[in-house]
């Protein structure tokens, strides 16, 4: 998602529903992508990654989709739980130069 005004874009979902968080990246040379989760008062935590030679990767309850044509990344969370409430960032990196650029973040709010 894109930031609007001063606030993080927020996605509100009901507990048990599936969540989809989107990210547009900027560098067509980026070949490695990560989704991070940041809970309040903590540092970003790795969720899942994907390399540019793939278009889909699945983890436990999470799936990342990569569309290189439109430079778009999405994170799908199945059966969202209250513990999933956090800010989610996508990060992009280029091979051979370990510098991560972060997207602007999306706040996920899970309602019980």
């Amino acid at each position, binding site marked *: 998602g894109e930031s609007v005004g001063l606030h993080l874009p927020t996605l509100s979902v009901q507990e048990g529903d599936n969540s989809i968080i989107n990210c547009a990246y900027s560098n067509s040379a980026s070949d490695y992508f990560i989704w991070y989760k940041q809970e309040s008062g903590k540092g970003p935590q790795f969720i899942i990654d994907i390399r540019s030679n793939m278009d889909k990767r699945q983890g436990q309850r999470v799936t990342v989709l990569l569309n290189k044509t439109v430079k778009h990344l999405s994170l799908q969370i199945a059966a969202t739980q209250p513990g999933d409430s956090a800010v989610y960032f996508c990060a992009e990196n280029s091979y051979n130069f370990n510098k991560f650029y972060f997207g*602007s973040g999306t706040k996920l709010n899970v309602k019980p």
Partner: protein
Amino acid sequence: DTAVSQTPKYLVTQMGNDKSIKCEQNLGHDTMYWYKQDSKKFLKIMFSYNNKELIINETVPNRFSPKSPDKAHLNLHINSLELGDSAVYFCASSPDRIMNTEAFFGQGTRLTVV
């Protein structure tokens, strides 16, 4: 054991002061970073060190000086603090600058300049 640890967690100081934030990683990683997160939660890289050598300096003011005494430590010293320096500063590490792998983040240092 904490993988990437930063101290202090909170730092409140007056404009014009000089302060340091320390970071240590016990993961055996070669590469360490400093990131700044502003009030809008935007995370921006500041510095990257690989095996004690500076490899990235993202046009950060000279008032910010990183120091890496060994590859497990990357400290950040800030001179003449300004109000705009207020932010959360994150230290991170990753195994190698060549291989694309995740970065592990510390818990952050919330710096407030008054």
